[in-house]
């Protein structure tokens, strides 16, 4: 955040100061907020930054910047030369970027590059998520209106922007963007959309695209309206492993995206009874399970690395297991002819609920266990209403089906 302020200040100094004002700048005239901006890293504790107004004291170079740059900075500050100050600050920061400022035995924190700072400034300045919502919504509308080509173009645009957001976060944070609830709400619909595009390529069925758009719009609206902290946060110490964060979390959270998509498809199947939709459901269940089971096992291996045990029925582990059980029952029952497409769709919806609880419920409703870095609160009532409505939907469909079967007899 401090570095972001630094960048913003540099850009303020450079571009937005009226020309007439330049040349009349004096240190004491500068507005108090600017003079107190901490832009001078301490010489010995570089994580500690001093405000600009400390340049007034002639105590020698107390900054981590080279002496020559410090002298120029001080001269520019004392003379009130904002252009020179701006230029020298940029030069000064360039001498630091990419250098370590906090070192642990295995992990090191580096000063971000100017490119990262600019990316962060760009990310926070523009409503990128809102852009995604608009594009996905437009694509969804086009699907509803059967303008499939337009819908596809809009969806691909939305997906490109969505990918750009994730790539930007990766670039800024230097890690996969899946370390808290807010980040996973961006990542999960991206996976759903990616999976839907791949399934569309294989099965030539556009329904899956519409379902993915619906899911993306819903989740991104929740992200915008839920009050989740939008900041680019530091990763928790326990998650501070690029390797496992990439392997375990991307797989498991990725499976959520696939399962949520299968859940939406399940709802559509129960309404429209389309065999092609059922085939899509089966494929999404296969992909989801193929991600969830190995991902969960790899999580066990990570837990063995980090906490010293492979499996201990921590609530997050337990609910991953429960979700796996739900899908295994459905897949076994379908494979061995105990249920039909109808059962498959119902199973996809039940699994959808189990996944929602694993993702949201464990962190926000149960709130116990070792995965405490994801805990939060709020939204329980909406979750309960949604779960209740979904169960009512299933009961309603079941009653209708019973009636239809009775009528046919």
């Amino acid at each position, binding site marked *: 955040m401090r570095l972001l302020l630094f960048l913003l200040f540099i850009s303020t100094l450079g571009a937005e100061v009226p020309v007439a004002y330049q040349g009349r700048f004096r240190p004491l005239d500068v507005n108090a907020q600017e003079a107190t901006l901490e832009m001078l890293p301490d010489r010995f504790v570089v994580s500690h930054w001093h405000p600009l107004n400390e340049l007034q004291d002639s105590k020698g170079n107390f900054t981590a910047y080279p002496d020559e740059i410090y002298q120029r900075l001080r001269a520019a500050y004392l003379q009130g030369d904002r252009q020179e100050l701006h230029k020298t600050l940029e030069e000064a920061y360039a001498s630091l970027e990419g250098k370590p400022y906090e070192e642990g035995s295995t992990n090191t924190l580096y000063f971000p590059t100017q490119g990262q700072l600019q990316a962060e400034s760009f990310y926070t300045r523009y409503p990128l998520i809102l852009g995604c919502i608009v594009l996905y919504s437009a694509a969804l509308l086009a699907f509803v209106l059967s303008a499939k080509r337009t819908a596809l173009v809009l969806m691909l645009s939305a997906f490109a922007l969505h990918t750009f957001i994730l790539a930007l976060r990766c670039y800024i944070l230097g890690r996969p963007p899946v370390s808290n609830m807010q980040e996973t709400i961006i990542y999960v619909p991206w996976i759903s959309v990616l999976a839907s595009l791949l399934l569309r390529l294989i099965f030539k069925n556009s329904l899956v695209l519409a379902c993915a758009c619906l899911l993306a719009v819903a989740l991104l609206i929740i992200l915008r309206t839920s009050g989740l902290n939008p900041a680019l946060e530091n990763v928790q110490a326990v998650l501070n492993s690029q390797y496992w964060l990439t392997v375990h979390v991307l797989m498991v959270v990725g499976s959520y995206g696939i399962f949520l998509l299968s859940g939406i498809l399940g709802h559509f199947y129960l309404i429209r009874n389309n065999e092609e939709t059922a085939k899509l459901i089966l494929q999404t269940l296969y992909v989801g399970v193929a991600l969830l089971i190995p991902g969960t096992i790899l999580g066990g291996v990570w837990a063995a690395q980090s906490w010293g045990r492979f499996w201990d029925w921590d609530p997050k582990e*337990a609910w991953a297991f429960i979700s796996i059980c739900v899908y295994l029952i459905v897949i076994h029952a379908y494979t061995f002819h105990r249920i039909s497409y109808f059962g498959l769709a119902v199973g996809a919806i039940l699994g959808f609920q189990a996944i929602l609880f694993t993702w949201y419920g464990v962190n926000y409703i149960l709130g116990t*266990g070792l995965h405490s870095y994801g805990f939060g609160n709020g939204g329980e009532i909406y979750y309960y209403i949604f779960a209740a409505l979904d169960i009512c939907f299933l009961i309603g469909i079941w009653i209708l089906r019973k009636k239809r079967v009775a009528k046919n007899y």
Partner: protein
Amino acid sequence: MKLIRFLGSIYLAIFLISSTALFVIAGTVLESLTASHRYAAHFTYSNPLFKALLWGFFLNILISALLRWPFRQKHVPFLVTHLGLLMLLGGTLIKAYYGTQGSLLITEGSSSAELLLPDTYSIRLWARDKRSEQYPLSQDLSLSVDKGKLPEISIDLAAYAPHSQVSYESWIKRDQVFIQGLKPFAVHPEPKGPPFPISSKVRLNGQVWDLMAFKTEESATLARKIYQQGLKISGEAPFKIEVAHSPTLLFLDTPENVVLYTFDKKGHVQEELYPKSSPKAMAVYDQGYGGYFSFAKIEKETFESLLQCRCLPQPPSQMLEENIPQITLRLRNSDNQDFITLPFERQATGLKWPVLKGQYLARFQPLLEKIPYRVRLRQAREIKYPHSTQPFSYESDLIFTELKTGRQIEKTISMNNVHETWDGYRFYLANITTGDLGSIKKVQIIVNRDPAKYWLTYPGAFFLSAGIFLLFWLRPYRKV
């Protein structure tokens, strides 16, 4: 054959998967309601029925695979997946029976070579001649008294309570004040007002001191009243104040503390607090065999009182992790018999209590298991993100000494960065706390050894994952 077919059937598989899932759901709900993982585990994951379900899984998978004999190419995905599952389950069982799992608690500068085994109980005895023995106490409260290194002792479990309130008593025990070398004197109930009764008197450095003791809720208020009673105020402003009372030692018994006030002849007041929750200002005699005493220095004289631990049985809490079990033991040797009540010392670092006339020390603690390494903690640190309270890394600098060879290795371990020895012991940093000694840190290091991990559990996980891919996509849409 019918039974065999049933044991390998899809119906049993679905029943087992559903039942296990229901058990686990119940476990997570219980854990959330009670905030106790152990409570939930007691009714679910550690329940024999749950274990039976897991064994049922094992059988179901095995038999369903064997029923496909003679195996053909089309069975490969099924067999690979289920072999993976069997290997995973087998690995977990082998770890449970033959593996090691425990924790080391080490303070900066100190070392340990003994693991605390979780969820275990034992009585540990130390003899004056440095022999020691631990007696395991099983979950069903049967005490295994193998004669071991202390054959002259017999131990019986006389009483047990699953939870107790532990307090440390020194100066005041029940309704009397005990000071070494003096006759016990009475503790009076909270007085309504002056005159305040004197319980006893003692001569100190040529002066006679009044000894007073009261029960009270508000020690400071009562002490002020007693002190003011002995002041004589005369004249007009500025008043003349004279100390008219004899020097007094005042013991006040509050629910949380014993507070000792001294009012000397010159009017000086001294206050000393002795919390009941933990021993304070303690003198140890003969390394504990001679007992522990609270002490106070008054007029260059040292007063002492024997420290005792008092365990009051309480209704157990649902949060099992917070319960402090207590046991009462009867110990006998050829000369003496002794009864002692001990509270459970979860970290095995509390006081060892003298028994059998100070010939032995005893402590109720988790079972300890020796490992072939001594681990010394040089330094532990928590590194925070700059300008933030959020930790960036937890680290500990350790020295591992192999006990057999004396070979030493220095290593820094941190979260996600473990140390594994050549013989399979793995050391994980679990926790860093600031201990009782100011800024000196104490770390919890989890140690485990899983003999089946590399050749059963992890390969099993790989087979399972590979099998899933083969099963789903080698023959898509073909039902068995």
